[in-house]
């Protein structure tokens, strides 16, 4: 089990886990931030710019249109991006580990 701590392709090493969790968390947080900014700004806009948000757009008020209709596709885009990226991230981890295993084995055989 004891391995070189700098070797981030050994899946049991501390650095592999650390790196993996950091990459995953970074992706999740970026996506969450995109979502939260919109979600938390809307009440603020309602609070500070009520006239603007009450502008009529095809019968809707602007804020009603955003919240009642446009918010859903916005979230779909975020979740689609997240899923694509996170699947890609997993695949790249798997490839890295497998490549390292192969190199390790061929290295041993060559010795």
């Amino acid at each position, binding site marked *: 089990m004891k391995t070189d701590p700098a070797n981030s392709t050994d899946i049991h090493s501390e650095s592999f886990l650390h790196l993996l969790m950091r990459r995953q968390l970074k992706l999740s947080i970026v996506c969450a931030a995109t979502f939260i900014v919109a979600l938390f700004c809307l009440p603020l806009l309602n609070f500070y710019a009520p006239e603007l948000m009450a502008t009529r757009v095809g*019968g809707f*008020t602007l804020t009603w249109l955003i919240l009642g209709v446009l918010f859903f596709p916005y979230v779909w885009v975020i*979740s689609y991006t997240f899923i694509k990226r996170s699947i890609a991230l997993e695949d790249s981890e798997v490839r890295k580990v497998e490549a390292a295993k192969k190199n390790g084995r061929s290295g041993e055989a060559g010795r």
Partner: protein
Amino acid sequence: MNALAEAFAGHPGLLAAVDPWILSFSSVTVIVTILMGFWAAKKSKTASDFFVAGRGVSVGWNSAAISGEYLSAASFMGVAGMVMSSGYDALWYPVCYACGYLFLLLFIAGPLRRFGAYTIPDFAEGRYDSPVFRKIAVLFVLCICFFYTMPQMKGAGVTLSYIFPGLPYWVGVALVGAIITLNVALGGMKGITLVQAFQFWIKLFAISVPVFVLMAVYGSYGKQLAVNGIPQTPGAAIELSSSVSGAASEVHRLALPEKAPKDDLWMAPFGPLTTKAAKASHLSAEDTRSYALLYTYSLIIALVCGTAGLPHILVRFYTNPDGVSAKKTTMWVMILIGVFYVFPPVLGVMGRNLLPELYNGVGSKGTDKVVLELPRILNEKVPYLGSILSGITCAGAFAAFMSTFSGLLVSMTGALAHDVYGRILRPNSTAQDRMRMFKWCAILIGGVAVLLGSCVEKLEINFMVGQAFAIAASSYFPLLFMSVWWRGMTLKGAAAGMLTGGVLAVVAISLTSFSTLAAGNDGMAKVFSVFKPLGAFWTAHPLVRILCEQPALWAVPLAIITMIVVSKLTSKDIPKDIHMKMLVLHAPEKLGLKQEYIQEHEGAGH
């Protein structure tokens, strides 16, 4: 059944007032649901089939089933009712119900699935190697689910008293409760995956078709909204129709009763829902708005975080074959429910313009039934069309509360039979014993749910679901989020945080609901009369009232901080194999770590 017979005997005109179309559509839905349950019961033989559907459900089926289970009476009836009664502010509910899934997807769904366990108590036990923690987690499963069943039961009571005018509210609750309990006791979860998926499509059909027909006849979503905020004088109405559509078609609107909120309040943010507490204390307009902003944020936090902590939804993620399909399932769930949630507010808006008399009703006769009754006005234009569409929405409502109540019942029964009985009371019981217990637990819990449901006629369906979300947000969400992403969490930290947040949220929420039930002079007010003095306290302290009604704003951070502080204090108790646990939670499944983890555990004599 006797009660139903008595109710019919006591009101000879009752059956005559029943619309045959509505009755037949609803009956067909109920009968098909039950038949599917029995059919599936025959196919599920083993105990693990019973608990999580054999773990092999495809993405399409599973996402429709999750959506079907998630879209409860609150989504189907409550959202429209609340948009009608409170206007813009109620829109936060459908949006956050749908978007809360994003949080689940981003932070929790993948890791939890990789860890692999049947239920949240399983996860709690596995992550902290503690059977004690399992007991605490089970307690919260039951608590959150009971809060969530109450609005479903109200939905049942409202629908049945709409179909059979004059039928007492509680009879409807008892009847539907009995039918579903029987179905769950006989069918288990395999049946429910199929039935839930099927019911999602019923619900989507039942809400969208009436909306499209009503819009075609009475004017589109935008036009219906456009008449709100325009003074109700004939001259203004003509001006409006020319400015909005430019055509001769004019949106027809009935006069609002006294009790209805005025247009400007209804249409704009910070309306009746979020300003209620501040208005009751006669605060200045500026203070009222600030408090309403606070209320809005607390509501958002509760709904978004609460979705990620709902036990009956999380258990579904274990029915995916792997982590990638768990993510794909979440994506599809978000699309399916997002599409659904556009429709109920449309009915709420139309209800305000076309069926304003509902503002005068209370309890089961109030705005919560707008979805059921609104399509019926089409009878004026085309004979029978209104009744048929109203029958369809009633069928959808049945699908809504039946599917969610079944899902909750399975979660609660699973917790009782699988965890309390199978693991705590009698660890040596055979699979057959547990199956038999499953049935008895279902009956016990169904009975309690009916009792609770009979008490809450006065509370809005949607509001009650929001409360259940707030409790989930303050207990399970911090537990899951922190356990997955922070390796420094200890058992004591997790338990302390979850209990602090969860218990305080339950107390705060119960106090506000009890005082609402205590107001007035009906029978229920007498039962809760102990809480009457609270009303005066709330008036004196509107901020406290808001923070108790919507506790997520303080309860979620409090739970997380408690977790961090207690974990730091007890940091020597961090599980020894935490590294391996985190690896199983986060490493891609293709690396096969789960297998290694299990072998290590078995080797260590677990």
